[in-house]
């Protein structure tokens, strides 16, 4: 049996291929937009995953450490450690900053983690090159997206760090690559002012008569020394013992330590529901519009493609072709167009997705949904065209 649809496609194959390429690119854009949205949500989730924490202990009445700034004393960790159900507790600081390498600046999120055992909360879970932090000062593990290479010397605030390890997909909720440095350096980077500010602070203190009294030697030095301390961190990451109830432990800490404690679910809610809520909704809105527009365009293309063939259909009718054959031809063509377009779209989206500056996550489920939507759209659009085709008067073929 000769496939009428196939023959027709072969007849006008240039037109068919070009149309499917156009359709494919459109589907590719839609898939990519979906990927951008998924990537955004994934960035937020991956931040939580990578921290390896079950609980986040932060300053009271803040949504820290990601959505709001939070600062607590670094010795809180010890009291957290004593709480029932806690396996490990680790101090962590986060600082969004510019990191200098050579002459250029890169925007990164600097995470201060306690060097030591890999896999401890806060530490990168896996590396793609190099090694973990081994010294307690002046080493860094960077995300590949930062563009840093092993052995690079980068400057964060007042100290230089050697990149000793690389990792991947360690990003802040905003998608900035993360750089891990030892906690003590990070505390200094975050809370220690620059030299000018320190000097001016000293001068200001020296000019204050109540802090620099004549006849009390050593007082000024003591006051200045007390200004240089920075016993703060942004959060304490807590990993629970297997089987411990996060909510119960969190409640216990909230009650007795008078600190804010978030569980994984609450943290996700903060990140997704508050921090990236508007921007992700923005993308989602755009995605919906794009999907609708793509659907409309697919429908129009198939409809006009069929209308263009109305004369030939009339001829088919004239020679006594059954309606079912004609309907089959139109529908097969539409589905072929859809399948081809989807393939082109998927391939192109996969190829350009890694080129995006931020993470684009193309999920199989999204692709499957997209494929189903495309086919449904094509069938629906072909129905419109079929209605026209079936109604066509065979006389038109002559007239």
């Amino acid at each position, binding site marked *: 049996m000769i496939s009428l649809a196939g*023959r027709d*496609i*072969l*007849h006008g*194959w240039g037109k068919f*291929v070009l149309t499917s390429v156009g359709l494919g690119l459109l589907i590719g854009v839609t898939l990519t937009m979906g990927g951008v949205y998924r990537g955004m949500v994934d960035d937020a989730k991956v931040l939580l*995953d990578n921290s*390896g924490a079950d609980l986040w202990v932060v300053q009271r009445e803040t949504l820290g450490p990601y959505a709001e700034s939070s600062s607590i004393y670094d*010795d809180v960790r010890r009291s957290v450690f004593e709480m029932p159900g806690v*396996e490990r507790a680790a101090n962590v600081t986060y600082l969004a900053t510019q990191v200098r390498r050579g002459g250029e600046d890169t925007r990164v999120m600097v995470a201060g983690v*306690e*060097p*030591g*055992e*890999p*896999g401890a909360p806060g530490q990168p*879970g*896996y*590396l*793609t*090159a*190099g*090694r*973990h932090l*081994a*010294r*307690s*000062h*002046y080493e860094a593990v960077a995300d*590949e997206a930062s563009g*840093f*290479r*092993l052995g690079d010397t980068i400057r964060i605030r007042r100290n230089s760090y050697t990149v*000793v*390890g*690389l990792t*991947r*997909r360690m990003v802040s909720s905003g998608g900035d690559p993360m750089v891990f440095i030892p906690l*003590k350096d990070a505390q200094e980077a975050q809370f220690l002012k620059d030299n000018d500010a320190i000097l001016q602070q000293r001068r200001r203190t020296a000019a204050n008569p109540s802090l620099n009294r004549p*006849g009390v*030697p050593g007082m000024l030095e003591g006051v200045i020394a007390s200004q240089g301390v920075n*016993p703060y961190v942004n959060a304490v990451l807590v990993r629970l013992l*297997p089987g411990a109830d996060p909510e119960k432990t969190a409640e216990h800490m909230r009650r007795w330590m008078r600190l804010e404690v978030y569980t994984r679910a609450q943290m996700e809610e903060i990140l997704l529901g508050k921090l990236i809520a508007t921007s992700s909704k923005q993308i989602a809105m755009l995605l919906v519009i794009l999907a609708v527009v793509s659907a409309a365009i697919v429908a129009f293309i198939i409809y006009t493609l069929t209308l263009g063939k109305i004369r030939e259909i009339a001829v088919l009718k004239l020679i006594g072709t059954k309606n079912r054959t004609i309907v089959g031809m139109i529908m097969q063509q539409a589905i072929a167009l859809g399948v*081809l377009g989807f*393939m*082109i779209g*998927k*391939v192109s989206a*996969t*190829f350009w*997705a890694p080129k995006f500056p931020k993470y684009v996550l*193309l*999920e*199989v489920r999204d*692709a499957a949904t997209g494929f189903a939507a495309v086919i449904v759209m094509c069938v629906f659009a072909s129905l419109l065209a079929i209605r026209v085709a079936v109604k066509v008067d065979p006389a038109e073929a002559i007239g």
Partner: protein
Amino acid sequence: MRKGSVKGRTLLLVALLLPLAGLFVYTMTNSGPLAPVPVTVAEVESMSISPALYGIGVVESRAVHRIGATSPGRLLWLDAQIGERVVSGQVLGELDPVDLDERIEAQRAAARRLESLVAAAESRVAEANARKEYAEAQATRYENLRKTKAVSVEAADAKRQERRTTAAMWSSARADAEAARAERARSGAELQGLIARREDLKLVSPIDGIVAAREAEKGSVVVAGQSVFQIVDTKELRISVRFDQSMASGLRAGLPAEIVLRSRADEVFAGHILRVEPIADPITEELVAKVVFEQTPGTLPPLGELAEVTVRLPALPEGPVVPDAALRRFDGRLGVWVMENGSISFRPVVTGRRDLDGRVRILEGLDAGERIVVYSVKALTPRSRVKVVERLGDGA
């Protein structure tokens, strides 16, 4: 329409569609969650690692001698600049004595006066003594005469009375002389005291060393206890190094250390640990150790300069060693992904010491020669398909 051309077109279209379909299948299976995870694999090596400790410290002198005033006063002169070498006993400056010199002079005059007073009192003693002796002789003589009744009892009594009077006068003169001598001694001691106080106004270096700081200038008023100069002993230069407590096992006195000064980053000085302080810092959770240079650098590092210190511990006996990047946490346990017949499985391990190059000694769970996953582009699960590659990305 000729048949041949249709066949040609079909072939062309198929030729066009086949690569597309191939590409599609390739992208579906090689990207996203279905794609195999590129990993690098290494063999567990049996080797000896020498763990090392790393800390940062501050250059300091064993002791800083703060030289200052013991009493309030104005600085009259200072004669030592920062960085200058001074010797033990050298006078570096002096406080204004105000009226102390005059008071010393007055005390000297008073002492001289008391000297004369003592002399006068002593001559009075001699005089009283002479009188007393004469009166005694007279009294004896008259007593003998009275016995022979050559003189009257009254005359003899008068001589006896005279003897007693002169004796009392002699005692009194002696007491006066004693008092004058005591007064002279008091005045002498007072003079000595004033001279000592005068000496104390001088700022004297107690050691051979260099002037590290000069904290007040000529003319300024200092209070008692305020330091004016800081003198440090350059022979006793050391580095107070802080080691993270959790990463400092094996730290002990005598271990060799490599010292890098912050201002001379490309120079490594040899040193050793002098002692580990018995008191750790509970706030910063660090141990403090004193490290000394084997040979004091030619140009002295300034006190307070930061130094990085690496302490090499003795090498451990051979055993299975893995890169620390291979250690992963999965399902709440620390372990490695072992590669066997192209698939991976998680194996919990017990880790031992590690060195500063990221090599970790495995105590339990792995044998040398097993193949393990080192790097991967994402977290692994037992269901992950993996693809072994030489290296990941272009980062390495």
